[in-house]
Protein backbone atom coordinates (compact mmCIF):
# COMPACT_ATOMS: atom_id res chain seq x y z
CA UNK A 1 0.00 0.00 0.00
CA UNK A 2 1.24 3.51 -0.88
CA UNK A 3 2.19 5.51 2.24
CA UNK A 4 0.31 8.73 2.82
CA UNK A 5 3.57 10.50 3.68
CA UNK A 6 6.98 9.55 2.43
CA UNK A 7 10.26 11.40 2.92
CA UNK A 8 13.44 10.64 1.01
CA UNK A 9 16.68 12.29 2.11
CA UNK A 10 14.65 15.27 3.26
CA UNK A 11 16.71 18.28 4.24
CA UNK A 12 15.89 21.72 5.53
CA UNK A 13 18.44 24.46 6.02
CA UNK A 14 17.65 27.84 7.55
CA UNK A 15 19.97 30.65 6.60
CA UNK A 16 20.28 33.73 8.71
CA UNK A 17 22.68 36.65 8.31
CA UNK A 18 25.07 35.13 10.80
CA UNK A 19 24.61 31.40 10.54
CA UNK A 20 23.33 28.43 8.58
CA UNK A 21 21.21 25.95 10.53
CA UNK A 22 20.52 22.49 9.16
CA UNK A 23 17.26 21.56 10.88
CA UNK A 24 16.67 18.31 8.93
CA UNK A 25 19.64 16.30 7.76
CA UNK A 26 18.32 13.83 5.21
CA UNK A 27 15.26 12.18 6.71
CA UNK A 28 13.90 8.92 5.37
CA UNK A 29 10.58 7.67 6.68
CA UNK A 30 7.02 6.88 5.71
CA UNK A 31 3.62 7.08 7.41
CA UNK A 32 0.90 4.70 6.33
CA UNK A 33 -2.74 5.68 5.83
CA UNK A 34 -4.70 5.42 9.05
CA UNK A 35 -1.62 5.52 11.26
CA UNK A 36 -1.52 7.42 14.53
CA UNK A 37 2.14 8.33 14.83
CA UNK A 38 3.81 10.26 17.60
CA UNK A 39 6.91 12.24 16.67
CA UNK A 40 9.13 12.37 19.72
CA UNK A 41 12.24 14.31 20.36
CA UNK A 42 13.75 17.10 22.41
CA UNK A 43 13.29 20.78 21.61
CA UNK A 44 15.22 21.78 18.48
CA UNK A 45 15.26 18.21 17.15
CA UNK A 46 13.35 19.19 14.01
CA UNK A 47 9.79 18.08 14.87
CA UNK A 48 8.13 21.41 14.05
CA UNK A 49 10.22 21.86 10.91
CA UNK A 50 9.12 18.45 9.67
CA UNK A 51 5.43 19.12 10.42
CA UNK A 52 5.66 22.50 8.68
CA UNK A 53 7.04 20.82 5.56
CA UNK A 54 4.32 18.16 5.56
CA UNK A 55 1.70 20.84 6.23
CA UNK A 56 2.92 22.79 3.17
CA UNK A 57 3.66 25.82 5.34
CA UNK A 58 7.31 25.70 4.32
CA UNK A 59 9.40 24.10 1.59
CA UNK A 60 12.36 21.72 1.86
CA UNK A 61 15.90 22.57 0.84
CA UNK A 62 16.73 19.15 -0.63
CA UNK A 63 15.32 15.65 -0.91
CA UNK A 64 11.78 14.58 -1.66
CA UNK A 65 8.56 14.75 0.31
CA UNK A 66 5.51 12.94 -1.06
CA UNK A 67 1.92 13.13 0.11
CA UNK A 68 -0.26 10.31 -1.14
CA UNK A 69 2.29 9.81 -3.93
CA UNK A 70 2.32 13.49 -4.95
CA UNK A 71 5.63 15.28 -4.67
CA UNK A 72 5.30 18.46 -2.60
CA UNK A 73 8.64 20.04 -3.49
CA UNK A 74 8.57 22.78 -6.11
CA UNK A 75 4.77 23.17 -6.01
CA UNK A 76 3.40 26.65 -6.65
CA UNK A 77 1.72 28.63 -3.85
CA UNK A 78 -1.72 27.97 -5.33
CA UNK A 79 -1.13 24.21 -5.30
CA UNK A 80 0.24 24.33 -1.77
CA UNK A 81 -2.89 26.23 -0.69
CA UNK A 82 -4.98 23.52 -2.31
CA UNK A 83 -3.22 20.83 -0.26
CA UNK A 84 -3.49 22.83 2.99
CA UNK A 85 -7.17 23.27 2.25
CA UNK A 86 -8.13 19.72 1.35
CA UNK A 87 -5.54 17.23 2.57
CA UNK A 88 -4.12 18.58 5.81
CA UNK A 89 -5.55 19.76 9.11
CA UNK A 90 -3.16 21.67 11.37
CA UNK A 91 -3.26 21.88 15.17
CA UNK A 92 -0.81 24.20 16.93
CA UNK A 93 0.47 24.39 20.46
CA UNK A 94 -0.92 27.94 20.90
CA UNK A 95 -4.42 27.05 19.55
CA UNK A 96 -4.50 30.15 17.32
CA UNK A 97 -8.26 30.69 17.40
CA UNK A 98 -9.68 33.90 15.93
CA UNK A 99 -10.66 35.89 18.99
CA UNK A 100 -13.60 37.69 17.38
CA UNK A 101 -15.32 34.52 16.20
CA UNK A 102 -17.35 32.08 18.29
CA UNK A 103 -16.10 28.53 18.83
CA UNK A 104 -18.44 27.20 16.13
CA UNK A 105 -17.41 29.96 13.69
CA UNK A 106 -13.76 29.12 14.31
CA UNK A 107 -14.50 25.48 13.52
CA UNK A 108 -16.31 26.44 10.31
CA UNK A 109 -13.58 28.82 9.15
CA UNK A 110 -11.67 26.32 6.93
CA UNK A 111 -14.89 25.61 4.99
CA UNK A 112 -15.24 29.36 4.33
CA UNK A 113 -11.83 29.29 2.70
CA UNK A 114 -12.72 26.24 0.62
CA UNK A 115 -14.66 27.41 -2.45
CA UNK A 116 -15.34 23.83 -3.50
CA UNK A 117 -17.24 23.09 -0.31
CA UNK A 118 -20.55 24.29 0.98
CA UNK A 119 -20.29 25.69 4.48
CA UNK A 120 -22.08 23.08 6.57
CA UNK A 121 -23.14 24.31 9.95
CA UNK A 122 -24.27 20.78 10.75
CA UNK A 123 -20.75 19.45 10.26
CA UNK A 124 -19.36 22.20 12.46
CA UNK A 125 -21.86 21.32 15.16
CA UNK A 126 -21.10 17.61 14.78
CA UNK A 127 -17.37 18.24 15.21
CA UNK A 128 -17.99 20.40 18.26
CA UNK A 129 -19.97 17.51 19.70
CA UNK A 130 -17.20 15.09 18.71
CA UNK A 131 -14.68 17.03 20.80
CA UNK A 132 -17.15 17.29 23.68
CA UNK A 133 -18.03 20.99 23.32
CA UNK A 134 -21.65 20.78 22.24
CA UNK A 135 -22.62 23.37 24.85
CA UNK A 136 -19.80 25.78 24.06
CA UNK A 137 -20.55 26.54 20.41
CA UNK A 138 -21.41 30.21 20.81
CA UNK A 139 -18.65 30.98 23.28
CA UNK A 140 -15.80 33.23 22.27
CA UNK A 141 -12.27 31.83 22.66
CA UNK A 142 -11.61 34.03 25.71
CA UNK A 143 -14.55 32.34 27.42
CA UNK A 144 -13.00 28.88 27.01
CA UNK A 145 -10.30 27.09 28.98
CA UNK A 146 -7.00 26.07 27.37
CA UNK A 147 -8.13 22.47 26.97
CA UNK A 148 -11.40 23.59 25.41
CA UNK A 149 -9.62 25.92 23.01
CA UNK A 150 -7.37 23.10 21.86
CA UNK A 151 -10.40 20.87 21.31
CA UNK A 152 -11.95 23.64 19.19
CA UNK A 153 -8.68 23.78 17.21
CA UNK A 154 -8.88 20.00 16.61
CA UNK A 155 -12.49 20.32 15.44
CA UNK A 156 -11.39 23.16 13.12
CA UNK A 157 -8.63 20.97 11.67
CA UNK A 158 -11.24 18.32 10.83
CA UNK A 159 -13.73 20.67 9.16
CA UNK A 160 -12.64 20.09 5.57
CA UNK A 161 -12.37 16.29 6.15
CA UNK A 162 -8.58 16.21 5.66
CA UNK A 163 -6.63 13.03 5.02
CA UNK A 164 -4.09 13.82 7.69
CA UNK A 165 -4.02 15.77 10.96
CA UNK A 166 -0.71 17.36 11.91
CA UNK A 167 -0.53 18.37 15.56
CA UNK A 168 2.52 20.27 16.78
CA UNK A 169 2.88 19.90 20.55
CA UNK A 170 -0.90 20.17 21.02
CA UNK A 171 -0.62 19.55 24.74
CA UNK A 172 2.33 21.84 25.38
CA UNK A 173 0.18 24.48 27.06
CA UNK A 174 -2.15 22.10 28.88
CA UNK A 175 -2.20 20.35 32.25
CA UNK A 176 -1.88 16.56 32.50
CA UNK A 177 -5.61 15.85 32.56
CA UNK A 178 -6.35 18.02 29.52
CA UNK A 179 -3.30 16.61 27.73
CA UNK A 180 -4.59 13.07 28.14
CA UNK A 181 -8.01 14.18 27.00
CA UNK A 182 -6.56 15.74 23.81
CA UNK A 183 -4.65 12.55 22.98
CA UNK A 184 -7.81 10.54 23.60
CA UNK A 185 -9.65 12.76 21.13
CA UNK A 186 -6.88 12.39 18.55
CA UNK A 187 -7.04 8.62 18.98
CA UNK A 188 -10.79 8.69 18.57
CA UNK A 189 -10.78 10.76 15.39
CA UNK A 190 -8.02 8.57 14.00
CA UNK A 191 -10.47 5.72 14.44
CA UNK A 192 -13.88 7.25 13.70
CA UNK A 193 -12.96 9.85 11.08
CA UNK A 194 -10.51 7.57 9.26
CA UNK A 195 -7.83 10.23 9.37
CA UNK A 196 -4.07 9.73 9.69
CA UNK A 197 -2.63 11.55 12.72
CA UNK A 198 0.95 12.72 13.11
CA UNK A 199 1.53 14.42 16.44
CA UNK A 200 4.71 15.96 17.77
CA UNK A 201 5.35 15.68 21.51
CA UNK A 202 8.18 15.27 23.96
CA UNK A 203 5.98 13.59 26.54
CA UNK A 204 6.81 9.85 26.58
CA UNK A 205 3.62 8.84 28.32
CA UNK A 206 1.44 10.69 25.81
CA UNK A 207 3.46 9.37 22.88
CA UNK A 208 2.57 5.85 23.99
CA UNK A 209 -1.11 6.62 23.33
CA UNK A 210 -0.23 6.52 19.60
CA UNK A 211 0.12 3.39 17.42
CA UNK A 212 3.70 4.21 16.38
CA UNK A 213 6.48 6.43 17.66
CA UNK A 214 9.18 8.03 15.51
CA UNK A 215 12.14 9.35 17.45
CA UNK A 216 13.83 12.38 15.96
CA UNK A 217 17.06 13.89 17.18
CA UNK A 218 19.31 16.54 15.72
CA UNK A 219 17.47 16.48 12.40
CA UNK A 220 17.49 12.73 11.92
CA UNK A 221 15.04 9.89 12.55
CA UNK A 222 16.92 7.73 14.97
CA UNK A 223 14.33 5.09 15.82
CA UNK A 224 10.81 3.92 14.87
CA UNK A 225 8.72 1.89 17.26
CA UNK A 226 5.29 0.24 17.05
CA UNK A 227 3.40 0.75 20.31
CA UNK A 228 0.32 -1.35 19.72
Amino acid at each position, binding site marked *: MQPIIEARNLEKIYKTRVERIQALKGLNFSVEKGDFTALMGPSGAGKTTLL*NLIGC*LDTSTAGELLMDGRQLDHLKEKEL*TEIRRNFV*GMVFQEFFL*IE*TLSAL*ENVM*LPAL*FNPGKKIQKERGAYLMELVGLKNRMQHLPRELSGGEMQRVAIARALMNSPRIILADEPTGNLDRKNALNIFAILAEINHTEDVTVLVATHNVKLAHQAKNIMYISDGLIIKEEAVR
Partner: protein
Amino acid sequence: MRLLKIAYKNIARKKIRSLLTIGGVAMAVAVLVSLLGFNAGYKMALNNDVDKMGYQVLVTAKGCPYEAATLMLKGGGGLRYMDADVYDRIVTDDRIDKITPQLATVKTIEGGGFTMYMGIEDSYTELKPWATFKEGKWFTSPEALEVIIGYEAAELEQRTIGDQIFIPDTREILTVVGIFERTGTQDDGVIFLPLKTAQKIFDLPDQLTGIGIKLKDLGQLSAFEEDLYDEGSIQVISLAQVKGTILNLISSAQILVTSVAIIAIFVAIVGVINTILMSVFERTQEIGVMKAIGAGNRQIFQLIWYETIIICTMGGLLGSLFALAGGSGVEYFVKRFLPFAPEGNLIYISPQLILFSLLGAIALGLFSGIYPALRASLMKPIEAIRSGE
Protein backbone atom coordinates in the same frame (compact mmCIF):
# COMPACT_ATOMS: atom_id res chain seq x y z
CA MET B 1 -20.67 33.04 7.90
CA ARG B 2 -18.95 35.09 5.26
CA LEU B 3 -15.70 36.94 4.79
CA LEU B 4 -17.62 40.20 5.08
CA LYS B 5 -18.77 39.26 8.57
CA ILE B 6 -15.22 38.43 9.63
CA ALA B 7 -14.06 41.75 8.16
CA TYR B 8 -16.72 43.61 10.12
CA LYS B 9 -15.76 41.82 13.34
CA ASN B 10 -12.12 42.73 12.76
CA ILE B 11 -13.05 46.40 12.49
CA ALA B 12 -15.16 46.17 15.65
CA ARG B 13 -12.18 44.65 17.47
CA LYS B 14 -10.46 48.06 17.73
CA LYS B 15 -13.45 50.33 18.15
CA ILE B 16 -11.77 53.64 18.97
CA ARG B 17 -9.21 53.36 16.18
CA SER B 18 -11.86 52.33 13.66
CA LEU B 19 -14.21 55.12 14.76
CA LEU B 20 -11.47 57.72 14.40
CA THR B 21 -10.66 56.47 10.91
CA ILE B 22 -14.34 56.42 9.96
CA GLY B 23 -14.58 59.96 11.36
CA GLY B 24 -11.70 61.07 9.13
CA VAL B 25 -13.38 59.66 6.05
CA ALA B 26 -16.69 61.17 7.15
CA MET B 27 -15.15 64.63 7.46
CA ALA B 28 -13.60 64.37 4.00
CA VAL B 29 -16.88 63.19 2.48
CA ALA B 30 -18.84 65.89 4.32
CA VAL B 31 -16.54 68.59 2.93
CA LEU B 32 -16.76 67.09 -0.55
CA VAL B 33 -20.56 66.75 -0.47
CA SER B 34 -20.93 70.29 0.87
CA LEU B 35 -18.61 71.63 -1.82
CA LEU B 36 -20.34 69.84 -4.68
CA GLY B 37 -23.70 70.73 -3.13
CA PHE B 38 -22.57 74.34 -3.00
CA ASN B 39 -21.50 74.28 -6.65
CA ALA B 40 -24.86 72.90 -7.72
CA GLY B 41 -26.86 75.07 -5.30
CA TYR B 42 -25.04 78.26 -6.14
CA LYS B 43 -25.53 77.81 -9.88
CA MET B 44 -29.20 77.03 -9.37
CA ALA B 45 -29.68 80.05 -7.14
CA LEU B 46 -27.77 82.26 -9.54
CA ASN B 47 -29.72 81.01 -12.55
CA ASN B 48 -32.90 81.62 -10.62
CA ASP B 49 -31.80 85.15 -9.73
CA VAL B 50 -30.70 86.02 -13.24
CA ASP B 51 -33.69 84.39 -14.93
CA LYS B 52 -35.98 86.34 -12.67
CA MET B 53 -34.49 89.58 -13.90
CA GLY B 54 -37.05 88.93 -16.60
CA TYR B 55 -34.95 90.17 -19.49
CA GLN B 56 -32.31 88.70 -21.73
CA VAL B 57 -30.44 91.90 -22.42
CA LEU B 58 -29.64 94.85 -20.20
CA VAL B 59 -28.57 98.15 -21.72
CA THR B 60 -26.62 100.47 -19.41
CA ALA B 61 -24.44 103.56 -19.72
CA LYS B 62 -20.87 102.73 -20.65
CA GLY B 63 -18.81 101.83 -17.60
CA CYS B 64 -21.82 101.50 -15.36
CA PRO B 65 -21.87 98.58 -12.92
CA TYR B 66 -24.82 96.58 -14.10
CA GLU B 67 -25.33 94.27 -11.25
CA ALA B 68 -26.12 94.59 -7.57
CA ALA B 69 -23.10 92.48 -6.68
CA THR B 70 -20.78 94.98 -8.25
CA LEU B 71 -22.60 97.80 -6.54
CA MET B 72 -21.98 96.07 -3.23
CA LEU B 73 -18.30 95.74 -4.04
CA LYS B 74 -18.19 99.43 -4.80
CA GLY B 75 -20.07 100.24 -1.62
CA GLY B 76 -23.17 101.26 -3.45
CA GLY B 77 -21.51 103.88 -5.63
CA GLY B 78 -20.33 104.08 -9.19
CA LEU B 79 -23.63 104.21 -11.02
CA ARG B 80 -23.58 105.94 -14.39
CA TYR B 81 -26.46 107.38 -16.29
CA MET B 82 -27.52 107.57 -19.91
CA ASP B 83 -29.99 109.79 -21.71
CA ALA B 84 -33.57 108.59 -21.90
CA ASP B 85 -33.32 109.24 -25.68
CA VAL B 86 -31.56 105.93 -25.98
CA TYR B 87 -34.75 104.26 -24.81
CA ASP B 88 -36.78 106.16 -27.41
CA ARG B 89 -34.47 104.98 -30.19
CA ILE B 90 -34.40 101.33 -29.12
CA VAL B 91 -38.09 100.91 -28.30
CA THR B 92 -39.10 101.02 -31.96
CA ASP B 93 -37.04 97.92 -32.86
CA ASP B 94 -39.37 95.21 -34.23
CA ARG B 95 -37.33 92.44 -32.63
CA ILE B 96 -38.27 93.60 -29.13
CA ASP B 97 -41.07 91.81 -27.37
CA LYS B 98 -40.97 93.72 -24.08
CA ILE B 99 -38.87 96.62 -22.83
CA THR B 100 -38.69 98.59 -19.61
CA PRO B 101 -36.57 101.60 -18.56
CA GLN B 102 -35.09 101.80 -15.07
CA LEU B 103 -33.37 104.38 -12.93
CA ALA B 104 -31.46 102.96 -10.01
CA THR B 105 -30.08 105.03 -7.16
CA VAL B 106 -28.32 103.93 -4.05
CA LYS B 107 -28.44 105.67 -0.71
CA THR B 108 -26.25 104.69 2.19
CA ILE B 109 -27.85 103.96 5.52
CA GLU B 110 -26.59 105.17 8.87
CA GLY B 111 -24.60 102.42 10.50
CA GLY B 112 -23.53 100.80 7.23
CA GLY B 113 -25.16 99.22 4.20
CA PHE B 114 -27.30 100.88 1.59
CA THR B 115 -30.75 100.89 0.12
CA MET B 116 -31.41 100.65 -3.58
CA TYR B 117 -34.22 102.79 -5.05
CA MET B 118 -35.48 101.87 -8.48
CA GLY B 119 -37.58 104.05 -10.71
CA ILE B 120 -39.81 101.90 -12.92
CA GLU B 121 -42.74 102.13 -15.34
CA ASP B 122 -45.84 99.98 -15.84
CA SER B 123 -43.91 97.88 -18.34
CA TYR B 124 -41.80 96.58 -15.44
CA THR B 125 -44.52 94.10 -14.43
CA GLU B 126 -44.83 92.86 -18.04
CA LEU B 127 -41.21 91.69 -17.83
CA LYS B 128 -41.63 90.39 -14.32
CA PRO B 129 -45.07 88.81 -14.18
CA TRP B 130 -44.15 87.05 -10.92
CA ALA B 131 -43.88 90.42 -9.18
CA THR B 132 -47.27 90.22 -7.51
CA PHE B 133 -48.55 92.14 -4.53
CA LYS B 134 -48.52 90.84 -1.01
CA GLU B 135 -50.41 93.93 -0.03
CA GLY B 136 -51.54 97.13 -1.71
CA LYS B 137 -51.49 98.10 -5.36
CA TRP B 138 -49.60 99.83 -8.19
CA PHE B 139 -48.77 103.57 -8.20
CA THR B 140 -51.76 105.81 -8.65
CA SER B 141 -49.99 107.92 -11.33
CA PRO B 142 -46.62 108.01 -13.19
CA GLU B 143 -45.50 110.93 -11.05
CA ALA B 144 -47.02 109.96 -7.72
CA LEU B 145 -44.95 110.37 -4.54
CA GLU B 146 -45.45 106.70 -3.74
CA VAL B 147 -43.31 103.62 -3.27
CA ILE B 148 -43.76 99.89 -3.58
CA ILE B 149 -41.41 97.96 -1.35
CA GLY B 150 -39.76 94.62 -1.98
CA TYR B 151 -40.70 91.84 0.45
CA GLU B 152 -37.48 91.77 2.45
CA ALA B 153 -37.06 95.52 2.55
CA ALA B 154 -40.57 95.77 3.98
CA GLU B 155 -39.81 93.08 6.56
CA LEU B 156 -36.54 94.72 7.50
CA GLU B 157 -37.98 98.17 7.90
CA GLN B 158 -41.30 96.92 9.31
CA ARG B 159 -43.27 98.83 6.69
CA THR B 160 -46.97 98.50 5.97
CA ILE B 161 -49.35 100.16 3.53
CA GLY B 162 -49.84 103.83 4.24
CA ASP B 163 -46.49 104.33 5.96
CA GLN B 164 -44.56 107.45 5.10
CA ILE B 165 -40.92 107.03 4.25
CA PHE B 166 -38.23 109.65 4.06
CA ILE B 167 -35.59 109.22 1.39
CA PRO B 168 -32.15 110.39 2.51
CA ASP B 169 -30.55 113.35 0.69
CA THR B 170 -33.93 114.43 -0.67
CA ARG B 171 -36.68 116.51 0.81
CA GLU B 172 -39.41 114.15 -0.20
CA ILE B 173 -41.64 111.96 1.92
CA LEU B 174 -43.25 109.12 -0.01
CA THR B 175 -46.18 106.89 0.86
CA VAL B 176 -46.04 103.11 0.78
CA VAL B 177 -48.81 101.93 -1.55
CA GLY B 178 -47.73 98.34 -2.11
CA ILE B 179 -45.52 95.53 -0.92
CA PHE B 180 -44.40 92.86 -3.36
CA GLU B 181 -44.56 89.16 -2.62
CA ARG B 182 -41.22 87.45 -2.07
CA THR B 183 -39.57 86.70 -5.44
CA GLY B 184 -36.37 85.14 -4.15
CA THR B 185 -34.30 87.72 -6.07
CA GLN B 186 -32.46 90.92 -5.32
CA ASP B 187 -35.67 92.81 -6.07
CA ASP B 188 -36.88 91.74 -2.62
CA GLY B 189 -34.54 94.30 -1.09
CA VAL B 190 -35.36 97.20 -3.41
CA ILE B 191 -37.71 100.14 -2.93
CA PHE B 192 -39.53 100.95 -6.17
CA LEU B 193 -41.00 104.26 -7.18
CA PRO B 194 -42.41 105.67 -10.44
CA LEU B 195 -39.64 106.43 -12.97
CA LYS B 196 -40.62 110.05 -13.39
CA THR B 197 -40.81 110.56 -9.63
CA ALA B 198 -37.35 109.04 -9.25
CA GLN B 199 -35.92 111.28 -11.97
CA LYS B 200 -37.40 114.28 -10.24
CA ILE B 201 -36.53 113.67 -6.59
CA PHE B 202 -33.05 112.37 -7.29
CA ASP B 203 -32.48 115.28 -9.65
CA LEU B 204 -31.72 113.12 -12.66
CA PRO B 205 -34.09 114.47 -15.34
CA ASP B 206 -34.32 112.35 -18.50
CA GLN B 207 -31.71 109.97 -17.15
CA LEU B 208 -31.75 106.17 -16.94
CA THR B 209 -29.40 103.55 -15.50
CA GLY B 210 -30.68 100.64 -17.50
CA ILE B 211 -33.12 99.31 -20.04
CA GLY B 212 -34.28 95.72 -19.68
CA ILE B 213 -35.19 94.01 -22.93
CA LYS B 214 -36.84 90.72 -23.81
CA LEU B 215 -36.68 89.70 -27.46
CA LYS B 216 -39.37 87.99 -29.50
CA ASP B 217 -36.86 85.44 -30.74
CA LEU B 218 -33.83 84.58 -28.62
CA GLY B 219 -32.01 83.49 -31.79
CA GLN B 220 -31.77 87.16 -32.77
CA LEU B 221 -29.84 88.06 -29.63
CA SER B 222 -26.40 88.28 -31.25
CA ALA B 223 -27.58 90.43 -34.15
CA PHE B 224 -29.53 92.66 -31.77
CA GLU B 225 -26.50 93.14 -29.54
CA GLU B 226 -24.37 93.95 -32.60
CA ASP B 227 -26.78 96.65 -33.72
CA LEU B 228 -26.87 98.22 -30.27
CA TYR B 229 -23.11 98.63 -30.28
CA ASP B 230 -23.68 101.43 -32.81
CA GLU B 231 -25.02 103.47 -29.89
CA GLY B 232 -21.66 104.82 -28.69
CA SER B 233 -22.54 105.79 -25.13
CA ILE B 234 -24.01 102.49 -23.96
CA GLN B 235 -22.97 98.98 -23.17
CA VAL B 236 -25.01 95.86 -23.80
CA ILE B 237 -24.92 93.05 -21.34
CA SER B 238 -26.48 89.70 -21.99
CA LEU B 239 -27.51 87.50 -19.08
CA ALA B 240 -24.89 84.93 -20.07
CA GLN B 241 -22.28 87.61 -19.36
CA VAL B 242 -23.87 88.41 -16.03
CA LYS B 243 -23.74 84.78 -14.98
CA GLY B 244 -20.16 84.41 -16.20
CA THR B 245 -19.02 87.50 -14.32
CA ILE B 246 -20.56 86.37 -11.06
CA LEU B 247 -19.20 82.85 -11.42
CA ASN B 248 -15.75 84.34 -11.93
CA LEU B 249 -16.21 86.40 -8.79
CA ILE B 250 -16.87 83.31 -6.68
CA SER B 251 -14.18 81.17 -8.27
CA SER B 252 -11.63 82.18 -5.62
CA ALA B 253 -13.96 80.98 -2.86
CA GLN B 254 -14.46 77.74 -4.78
CA ILE B 255 -10.71 77.21 -5.15
CA LEU B 256 -10.28 77.69 -1.40
CA VAL B 257 -12.96 75.14 -0.52
CA THR B 258 -11.79 72.69 -3.22
CA SER B 259 -8.27 72.82 -1.79
CA VAL B 260 -9.62 72.03 1.66
CA ALA B 261 -11.61 69.10 0.23
CA ILE B 262 -8.61 67.68 -1.64
CA ILE B 263 -6.45 67.89 1.49
CA ALA B 264 -9.19 66.28 3.56
CA ILE B 265 -9.50 63.40 1.08
CA PHE B 266 -5.74 62.91 0.99
CA VAL B 267 -5.58 62.85 4.80
CA ALA B 268 -8.47 60.37 4.87
CA ILE B 269 -6.71 58.05 2.41
CA VAL B 270 -3.51 58.12 4.46
CA GLY B 271 -5.55 57.52 7.63
CA VAL B 272 -7.31 54.50 6.18
CA ILE B 273 -4.10 52.98 4.82
CA ASN B 274 -2.40 53.53 8.18
CA THR B 275 -5.23 51.98 10.18
CA ILE B 276 -5.58 48.91 7.99
CA LEU B 277 -1.83 48.43 7.72
CA MET B 278 -1.49 48.57 11.51
CA SER B 279 -4.31 46.09 11.81
CA VAL B 280 -2.61 43.78 9.30
CA PHE B 281 0.70 43.94 11.18
CA GLU B 282 -1.03 43.22 14.47
CA ARG B 283 -2.77 40.21 12.94
CA THR B 284 0.21 38.80 11.07
CA GLN B 285 0.11 35.57 13.06
CA GLU B 286 -3.64 35.26 12.62
CA ILE B 287 -3.26 35.71 8.86
CA GLY B 288 -0.58 33.01 8.88
CA VAL B 289 -2.95 30.65 10.69
CA MET B 290 -5.73 31.42 8.22
CA LYS B 291 -3.37 30.45 5.43
CA ALA B 292 -2.39 27.31 7.32
CA ILE B 293 -6.02 26.21 7.51
CA GLY B 294 -6.66 26.80 3.82
CA ALA B 295 -7.04 30.52 3.04
CA GLY B 296 -5.64 31.49 -0.34
CA ASN B 297 -3.90 34.75 -1.23
CA ARG B 298 -7.03 36.01 -2.93
CA GLN B 299 -9.20 35.35 0.11
CA ILE B 300 -6.82 37.16 2.45
CA PHE B 301 -6.69 40.05 -0.03
CA GLN B 302 -10.51 40.11 -0.13
CA LEU B 303 -10.78 40.06 3.66
CA ILE B 304 -8.50 43.07 4.13
CA TRP B 305 -10.08 44.87 1.20
CA TYR B 306 -13.52 44.39 2.71
CA GLU B 307 -12.30 46.02 5.89
CA THR B 308 -11.23 49.19 4.08
CA ILE B 309 -14.43 49.22 2.07
CA ILE B 310 -16.56 48.88 5.22
CA ILE B 311 -14.65 51.71 6.92
CA CYS B 312 -14.95 53.98 3.88
CA THR B 313 -18.61 53.15 3.24
CA MET B 314 -19.48 53.88 6.87
CA GLY B 315 -17.44 57.09 6.62
CA GLY B 316 -19.26 57.97 3.40
CA LEU B 317 -22.68 57.44 4.97
CA LEU B 318 -21.77 59.39 8.07
CA GLY B 319 -20.17 62.17 6.01
CA SER B 320 -23.28 62.49 3.84
CA LEU B 321 -25.40 62.77 7.00
CA PHE B 322 -23.03 65.41 8.37
CA ALA B 323 -23.31 67.34 5.10
CA LEU B 324 -27.11 67.12 5.12
CA ALA B 325 -27.36 68.10 8.78
CA GLY B 326 -24.69 70.80 8.69
CA GLY B 327 -25.53 72.28 5.27
CA SER B 328 -26.90 75.50 6.70
CA GLY B 329 -23.82 75.98 8.88
CA VAL B 330 -21.50 75.43 5.93
CA GLU B 331 -23.65 77.82 3.89
CA TYR B 332 -23.24 80.49 6.55
CA PHE B 333 -19.47 79.92 6.58
CA VAL B 334 -19.10 79.91 2.79
CA LYS B 335 -21.26 83.03 2.38
CA ARG B 336 -18.71 85.00 4.38
CA PHE B 337 -16.16 84.42 1.60
CA LEU B 338 -18.48 85.16 -1.28
CA PRO B 339 -18.45 88.48 -3.09
CA PHE B 340 -22.01 87.84 -4.19
CA ALA B 341 -24.57 85.47 -2.76
CA PRO B 342 -27.80 84.93 -4.65
CA GLU B 343 -31.06 84.55 -2.78
CA GLY B 344 -32.24 81.12 -1.68
CA ASN B 345 -30.32 78.05 -0.57
CA LEU B 346 -26.73 78.03 -1.75
CA ILE B 347 -26.19 74.34 -0.97
CA TYR B 348 -28.24 71.79 -2.84
CA ILE B 349 -27.54 68.18 -1.91
CA SER B 350 -29.40 65.91 -4.31
CA PRO B 351 -29.92 62.13 -3.93
CA GLN B 352 -27.60 61.72 -6.92
CA LEU B 353 -24.91 63.67 -5.08
CA ILE B 354 -25.29 61.43 -2.02
CA LEU B 355 -25.06 58.35 -4.26
CA PHE B 356 -22.02 59.80 -6.02
CA SER B 357 -20.34 60.51 -2.69
CA LEU B 358 -21.02 57.01 -1.42
CA LEU B 359 -19.58 55.52 -4.60
CA GLY B 360 -16.63 57.89 -4.19
CA ALA B 361 -16.11 56.69 -0.61
CA ILE B 362 -16.24 53.06 -1.76
CA ALA B 363 -13.72 53.88 -4.50
CA LEU B 364 -11.55 55.49 -1.82
CA GLY B 365 -11.79 52.23 0.14
CA LEU B 366 -10.90 50.16 -2.90
CA PHE B 367 -7.88 52.33 -3.56
CA SER B 368 -6.70 52.63 0.06
CA GLY B 369 -7.05 48.91 0.64
CA ILE B 370 -4.83 47.73 -2.20
CA TYR B 371 -1.48 48.07 -0.45
CA PRO B 372 -2.44 46.64 2.98
CA ALA B 373 -4.37 43.81 1.30
CA LEU B 374 -1.40 42.97 -0.93
CA ARG B 375 0.94 42.99 2.06
CA ALA B 376 -1.33 40.59 3.91
CA SER B 377 -2.04 38.27 1.00
CA LEU B 378 1.61 37.83 0.07
CA MET B 379 2.71 36.83 3.58
CA LYS B 380 4.36 33.43 3.78
CA PRO B 381 2.33 31.33 6.24
CA ILE B 382 5.26 30.00 8.25
CA GLU B 383 6.89 33.42 8.59
CA ALA B 384 3.55 34.96 9.57
CA ILE B 385 2.91 32.31 12.23
CA ARG B 386 6.44 32.66 13.61
CA SER B 387 6.14 36.45 13.79
CA GLY B 388 4.38 36.11 17.14
CA GLU B 389 7.10 33.98 18.71
